[in-house]
């Protein structure tokens, strides 16, 4: 299950000069890991077996499997609507996640309500599985809010735009959970920290893993390796699969097919359970692909070939699950037709809610700079009030 350990005996058997030995070990490690990408639902829609993880997938009812598909389909429809809203000038920017639905829904659905999740800025499908109203995700991008939802309501933290910063918050939060447990104040929640392959190069990810391992914090690091950090390919971030890094910190690393919702769900359940049980952190690397642009501001054709995109389209997470649902008789045409209508309804609701968003008054921005009264804030707000009042009088 841990893909990251190079068997000692093999390493010891390697001979030759040290540089060669390192290189050989490097490749051997990468090969080991690449052989072990966990997959439970193949691109052709057929199930695959894994003694550790299949039981998690086999325990899923028809209703749950349909729920996964519904989550993915609605998230995709929402994402498309948000992209359209951006193109029509209603959002300053949008960060699409089409292609990554399985990684997000599988991990989101594996979490429990009492778990706390720290997203990046692309976890729209995760947010939806947590019960966040999708329109609320758009306030940030429309420029009416820096957040948009109460993080405590669904235990889903605000989006963070400074890459990797949230991984440390997640570990600290998990250290708090650990203390609460020791004091008998809480059950056993776990914490889920999302980040991308590019972000894995940021120092904060390293520091968060060091802290998590040192204190055995109940945190699961969930990396969506979507192959690209804006225009920079994964090969610039790492020579080895990221899951291998976990071994260096001393905790398990799992490499899963991120377009396989069953594998992601199983791995996430296993990892969250591991963390909840007090056994410490886990790193999951979900291999997936961002089918669209990084944001609506960039043009992927400048940095990658359409053939690559086509290859990944063949591994579409929705098609794969649809095949399974139909083949095993969990869903029929009526289900998919109804879902299409539900998606259109969701999209039109989102559109209506976004267009109805009221621009805040700048005065409101003074309100929460500090929790406690602050004289400079009061002074500057008073100045603004007076300044604006001057215009009103002049106009009259």
């Amino acid at each position, binding site marked *: 299950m841990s893909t990251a350990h190079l068997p000692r005996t093999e390493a010891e058997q390697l001979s030759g000069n040290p540089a060669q030995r390192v290189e050989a070990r490097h490749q051997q490690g990468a090969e080991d890991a690449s052989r072990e990408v966990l997959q439970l639902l193949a691109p052709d829609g057929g199930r695959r077996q894994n003694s550790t993880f299949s039981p998690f997938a086999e325990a899923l009812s028809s209703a749950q499997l349909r729920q996964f598909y519904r989550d993915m389909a609605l998230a995709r429809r929402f994402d498309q609507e948000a992209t359209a809203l951006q193109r029509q000038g209603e959002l300053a920017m949008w960060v699409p996640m089409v292609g990554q639905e399985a990684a997000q829904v599988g991990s989101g659905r594996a979490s429990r309500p009492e778990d706390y999740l720290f997203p990046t800025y692309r976890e729209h499908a995760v947010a939806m599985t947590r019960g966040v109203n999708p329109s609320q995700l758009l306030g940030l991008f429309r420029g009416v*809010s*820096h*957040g948009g939802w*109460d*993080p*405590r309501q669904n235990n889903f*933290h*605000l989006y*963070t735009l*400074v890459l990797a*910063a949230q*991984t*440390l*918050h*997640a*570990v*600290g*939060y*998990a*250290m*708090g*959970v650990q*203390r*609460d447990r*020791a*004091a008998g104040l809480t059950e056993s929640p776990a914490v889920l920290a999302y980040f991308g392959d590019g972000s894995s190069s940021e*120092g*904060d990810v390293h*520091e*968060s893993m*060091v*802290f998590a391992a*040192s204190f055995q914090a109940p945190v699961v690091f969930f990396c969506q390796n979507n192959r690209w950090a804006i225009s920079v390919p994964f090969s610039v971030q790492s020579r080895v699969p990221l899951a291998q890094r976990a071994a260096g910190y001393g905790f398990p690393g799992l490499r899963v097919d991120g377009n396989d919702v069953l594998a992601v769900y199983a791995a996430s359940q296993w990892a969250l359970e591991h963390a909840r049980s007090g056994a410490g952190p886990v790193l999951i690397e979900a291999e997936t692909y961002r089918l669209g642009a990084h944001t609506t501001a960039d043009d992927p054709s400048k940095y990658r070939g359409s053939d690559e995109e086509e290859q990944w389209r063949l591994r579409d997470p929705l098609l794969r699950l649809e095949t399974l649902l139909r083949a095993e008789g969990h869903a029929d045409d009526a289900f998919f037709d109804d879902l299409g209508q539900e998606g259109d309804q969701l999209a039109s609701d989102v559109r209506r809610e976004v267009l109805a968003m009221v621009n805040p008054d700048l005065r409101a*921005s003074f*309100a*929460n*700079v*500090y*929790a*406690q009264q*602050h*004289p*400079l804030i009061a002074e500057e707000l008073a100045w603004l009030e007076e300044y604006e009042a001057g215009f009103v009088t002049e106009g009259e």
Partner: protein
Amino acid sequence: MTTMTIAKAINAGLHRTLSEDPKTLLMGEDIGSLGGVYRVTEGLKAEFGADRVVDTPLAESGIIGTAIGLALRGYRPICEIQFDGFVFPGFNQITTQLAKIHARAAGQLTTGVVIRIPYGGGIGSIEHHSESPEALFAHTAGLRIITPSNPHDAYWMTQQAVQCPDPVIIFEPKKRYWLKGEVDTEQPAADPFTAQVLREGQDATLLAYGPLLPVALAAANAAEQDGRSVEVIDLRSLSPIDFDTITESVRKTGRLLIAHEAPTFGGLGGEIAARISERAFYSLHSPVIRIGGFHMPYPVAKVEEQYLPDIDRILEALDRALAY
């Protein structure tokens, strides 16, 4: 009333905080068994255990970032950064995260993290151990910054910082860690976000904070020998700044001198000068004069005495102010 050093007063303040509030914990490098490189946390691990006095991995961003997470879970982390010049790996977490979470969450979240940073020069140390980076933090909305100059304030301001729902950075004047003074453990110090007039005067106001207070008081005494009456204000809070107390004093004296160790350019002295010239322009008999560090990396120890504002530089500034 008991007499103690600033270091001991902070230690006692932390001790009281840890005893009274089980949600508080200390985090930092070498703060446990060693008691911190300045021994400010000495004995606390032995008494409260390794879970309350946490020797963290050597990672400043990690310290601040995990403290933020702990605060989100309802804890009150009090972080120690070992030296002023080593706060920068944690700068990102402090300025982009800690300072902003309350605003970004529209008030739904607070992160009452306290960060203690020994700062300032005059201890003959090597590079990155003598800096005064307070202006870099004061510029960021969402942070509060205080700096005690005496043991009584050190004892109380440490505890008051923990009570504050906002993030608070305490810049501790490391050169003064061994300065002794009386601490009244019954009578709390004034609101930590206010300035205090330490010495009354008529001819000029001399504003200083942290390590320069003894220098400012000595300069005022020396000026008195020359028949000049200097009012000395201990700023105490660098964000917010108590402009009311400064303005009132300047209305009385008509002159303002501001001394800090940090480089003059872009420092807090400039901010104070600008605000006071707006608030008390007609009371000013001379321009506001700043006495601070030069625009250079903090110099090597053998010449730092020339770099640091001292009595003579303050008196020279006073002469200039009085010459208008």
